[in-house]
């Protein structure tokens, strides 16, 4: 049974909690009301509502946009796997030592520099229209080239994330692994990389969220994804609502991942500060 002093403290904390919930609810309501009044009260609201938020157009466009979104999801899944593998390869190459590997190291370093600098949309055009021109491969759908372009660009970023993670593992861990007789490769695979992965998971998920919306850019190659479908529906209805629908769908797609990322980094932070009040 807690002491009277502790009971008093608990009662006080309960009162405080009730008060803060009340205050936050009130301030949220006030802000929402202000925003609504400003928006609806604006002189052009009626026109904007008609061209961007038409429920009938939204319902009519939804099936096609959803169908397009399915293509985005497929591209996203394939590209994510591709990025993970290729980025890991790039990061590993950059940690190789020994003179034999100099050209590989230089190539990997040059690659990450180049592809972090070029805008994704330019990579999309070059890959989507350039490589097919070589006539090496048969005719491939636009989504295929879009996926390749996404992998090329995002691998450059993600490999840097991996490299930062590898370097964040304390050298004494590598030393301990090598002292046991593990080879460079074994130490890397069994000791350094698993710890590096854990350190960079939140950053990786952030890049994944970024890629989740960039898959919409494959529409510039003519792939009928959610964005392209929305564009077609927009010109059909002469109304921008399909874009809003596509935008909302992308948000819905990304939302679980965004929440998961936040939750994960909050948990990591909580673990690191376990027992601390501030």
């Amino acid at each position, binding site marked *: 049974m807690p002491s009277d002093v502790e009971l008093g403290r608990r009662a006080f904390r309960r009162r405080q909690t009730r008060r803060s919930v009340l205050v936050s609810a009130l301030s949220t309501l006030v802000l929402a009301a202000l925003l609504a009044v400003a928006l609806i009260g604006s002189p052009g609201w009626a026109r904007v509502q008609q061209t961007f938020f038409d429920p009938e157009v939204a319902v009519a466009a939804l099936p096609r946009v959803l169908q397009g979104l399915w293509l985005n999801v497929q591209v996203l899944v394939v590209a994510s796997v591709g990025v993970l593998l290729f980025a890991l390869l790039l990061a590993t190459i950059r940690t190789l030592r020994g003179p034999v590997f100099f050209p590989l190291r230089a190539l990997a370093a040059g690659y990450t520099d180049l592809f972090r600098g070029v805008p994704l949309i330019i990579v999309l055009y070059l890959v989507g229209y350039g490589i097919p021109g070589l006539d090496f491969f048969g005719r491939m759908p636009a989504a295929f080239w879009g996926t390749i372009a996404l992998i090329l660009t995002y691998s450059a970023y993600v490999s840097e994330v991996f490299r930062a993670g590898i370097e964040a593992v304390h050298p004494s861990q590598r030393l301990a692994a090598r002292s046991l007789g*593990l080879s460079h490769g074994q130490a890397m695979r069994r000791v350094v990389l698993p710890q590096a992965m854990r350190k960079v998971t939140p950053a990786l998920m952030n890049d994944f969220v970024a890629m989740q919306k960039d898959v919409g850019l494959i529409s510039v190659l003519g792939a009928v994804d959610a964005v392209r479908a929305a564009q077609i529906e927009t010109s059909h209805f002469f109304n921008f609502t399909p874009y809003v629908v596509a935008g909302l769908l992308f948000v819905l797609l990304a939302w679980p991942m965004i929440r998961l990322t936040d939750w994960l980094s909050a948990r990591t932070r909580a673990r690191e500060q376990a027992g601390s009040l501030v």
Partner: protein
Amino acid sequence: MNASPAGLETPPVLRLRGIRRAFGDHEVLRGIDLDVAAHEVVALVGASGSGKSTLLRTVNLLERIDDGVILLAGEDVSDPRTDADRVRGRIGVVFQAYNLFPHLSVLDNVTLASRLVHRIPRAEAERRALGLLGSIGLGDFARSFPDRLSGGQQQRAAIVRAIATDPELLLLDEVTSALDPELVGEVLELVRALAARGTTIVMATHEMAFARDVADRVVFLDAGRIIEDAPAREFFAAPREARSREFLSRFLPEA
């Protein structure tokens, strides 16, 4: 166990001749000659920066040498053509900061080298590891991750990891320096047990009382040179060199 001279028929476990190592202009090791016989326990003592840790790292080929020869059971392992991984697999090392792998359970920490380097099947490696962990009272922690263990328990697990593959030589680098004073005892007790079992040990240490009790020989390093190399009892009872006496007076006021 008494200090025994290196046998004529079998080469010493470790023989160092003229080991030199410099970091830039700073000479850390200036020509070290040292023999360690089988079952011998040698304590490296000396002030911080005298070269103890660097010497241990060079023996395990974790540090390059600038000159000299390292013979492990008669084999020149300082030859650049040596397979360094194989040599390291024959030597156990325990670090000051334990360096357990935080993403692996205690059991996996202990069995990693057995499985990967010595190709022992997992079941057998685990059976052996569980026996070793049980014998030092860590059996219940085998499936725990290192961060659930106290510093003393972590360091004892690290020692078990180092001896799990039956190394020919065990190197201990100030294994109690990072521990809270009340946890030092349990780690030293384990080292004492290993010494009694006949493990060949070279240990850098600041625990003078422990070195006096457990070591057969004490090697006093100062500024990268061996100043005195004597049986432990003699070294602590009557150090020959002035610098040894000065060093000891700071650690053992009664000496």
